């Protein structure tokens, strides 16, 4: 069984939910990324999403764009991300999130082979809609990699059904029509949309985009299987760098932040 399927099967059996922190690989450098991945394991995060820096990320807001720019400015290469993952143990199962531009350039089969060898359990390719994903899906199946599909608030029910047919691992539900980034308010119809999606599939549903606060975790968690937190973490790295904090201090800050979200996830009141 793929580690992602195993994870959600175990969580479901225990009546628990997942926290999926997102990191931009190599921001500000790869040893720091490896260190945070180990910290995520230490505090009990369930799965982690590793963003591959890309020069033209059209689905990302300013926070993640800046992180990608910082990493690429230091000459980060795709191969180095794969090498880093091997050294980041123990860590939660990892999913690579990246543009299809990067996969296409390496070639689908070579890329999936490398990603699997490096230890990735799944792929999220936000600019590869379900109808363009056949070839990548086959390559992922051959190596027991999950290919996670995204569903947006603008997705019709009919389309959602077709996307679910193409999905494995979990469904990534995008909370708001827009780019990644923190938001103080999430749309009110989100619970209803998740309810409708729940009727369509047994796959785990994780919600991302805009999530940064324990109160949001409390509100969303009854309607889904896990939450993805990205920009709120990346922003802590950016602020730590700007204030010339040591890597230890930045890791401790993010650890406290994720710890708070994990408590909220378990239904504990926010400290």
């Amino acid at each position, binding site marked *: 069984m793929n580690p992602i399927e195993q994870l959600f099967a175990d969580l479901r059996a225990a009546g628990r939910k997942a926290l999926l922190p997102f990191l931009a690989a190599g921001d500000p450098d790869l040893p720091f990324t490896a260190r945070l991945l180990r910290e995520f394991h230490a505090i009990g995060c369930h799965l982690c999403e590793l963003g591959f820096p890309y020069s033209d990320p059209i689905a990302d807001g300013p926070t993640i764009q800046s992180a990608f720019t910082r990493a690429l400015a230091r000459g980060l290469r795709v191969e180095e991300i794969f090498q880093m993952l091997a050294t980041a143990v123990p860590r939660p199962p990892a999913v690579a999130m990246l543009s299809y531009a990067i996969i296409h350039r390496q070639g689908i089969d070579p890329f999936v082979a490398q990603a699997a060898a490096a230890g990735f359990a799944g792929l999220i390719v936000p600019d*590869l*809609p379900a109808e363009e994903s056949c070839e990548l899906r086959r390559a992922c199946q051959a190596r027991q990699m999950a290919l996670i599909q995204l569903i947006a608030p603008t997705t019709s029910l009919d389309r959602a059904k077709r996307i679910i047919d193409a999905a494995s691992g979990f469904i990534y539900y995008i909370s708001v*029509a827009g780019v990644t980034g923190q938001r103080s308010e999430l749309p009110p119809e989100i619970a209803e949309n998740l309810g409708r999606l729940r009727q369509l599939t047994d796959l785990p549903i994780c919600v991302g985009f805009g999530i940064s606060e324990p109160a949001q975790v409390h509100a969303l968690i009854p309607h889904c299987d896990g939450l993805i937190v990205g920009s709120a973490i990346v922003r802590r790295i950016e602020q730590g760098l700007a204030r010339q904090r040591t890597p230890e201090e930045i890791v401790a800050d993010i650890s406290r932040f994720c710890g708070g979200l994990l408590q909220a996830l378990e239904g504990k009141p926010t400290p």
Partner: protein
Amino acid sequence: MTTISSSDLLAAAALPDAAGRFGIFGGRYVPETLMEALQELEREYAAAAQDERFRAELTRLQRDFIGRPSPLYFAERLTKFCGGAEIWFKREDLNHTGAHKINNTIGQALLTLRMGKSRVIAETGAGQHGVATATACAHFGIPCVVYMGAEDVRRQQPNVRSMKLMGAEVRAVETGSRTLRDAINEAMRDWMGSVRTTHYILGSVVGPHPFPKIVRDFQSVIGRETIEQCRERWQRLPDLVVACVGGGSNAAGMFYPFVTEPTVELLGVEAGGMGNQLGQHASSLTFGRPGVLHGSMSYVLQDADGQTADVHSASAGLDYPGVGPEHSYWKEIGRVVYTNCSDAEALAAFDQTAQHEGILPALETSHALAIAMREAARRGQDQKIVVCLSGRGEKDAAEIERLKKL
């Protein structure tokens, strides 16, 4: 003269297919958030294209607002100067707003109204598409935001002023290389959050399906008129048609009606910039390879990891690391030949056209002129060359003065 069979040429002209593909090129590589809007646009455009009233309204606006048909002009002194084939200009510079871009924006603004959307966004490089979008939006009373790279805001000030005067908001983009590619990224990001109420008027034959087809179709009036005018003036078609290629909208509009005319050679000219090394030019078809950028598969300039490369051209409108997918397809099947021309050659062609013809061509267009002049010199006087004179060059005057001092 192409050696491709006429049935193959007809098949090529019937593309894109239902998946938005020109051979392996094109498609839709965009976030799920945009997919419903792209499908809606595809449906509405297909319905509009069959709608007599929509077509009549477009024809009326092309005549009364844009000033079509644009003339086919014999560049007699430039022809004598080159000493070979006749050089003719298709005068898109004489359109309202001074370039071919308005052909597309008027059409897409009509589509915006038809779809009931209340706001328009656009990207612009040289500013010609920004001005043409601001113009169409002012004409129809639609609020308009134009994204423009900060570097392009600097080198194309006259166009920035025009956009603002017509009520558009110009947002300078400070990310990345601060040029056209970053302006497209920013417009896409805006659209991700505004897609329910906003139409994105993409300015070239790039991006996800159905944009490459829609923009090509609205620009094809250039090639259709040219064919009609050539038949009327000469009772035959030209031997060679030349157009500059950045994203490739004027070239696509000029070439498309000629694709099925096997006797006509088609030549696209990319920006050769300052040299052949990655980063010195913007010649995606000449030096790039198939890859994904801005929602479609096409020739792109990337590094070995798939990161988009930095590009250079003196002309803001050609300063782009990709190209429309249909051009990639025409290159693959051998129907169109693509070459490139350096900054210096383009600047020289600008001067020669200005001084021999009393026409200031856009720096983008000057690339096509340079290659057309070279071709004219090596061909016989019985041959006829048509250059798509895609835009006028007043916007470039200050930048050209600056470049000459360097």
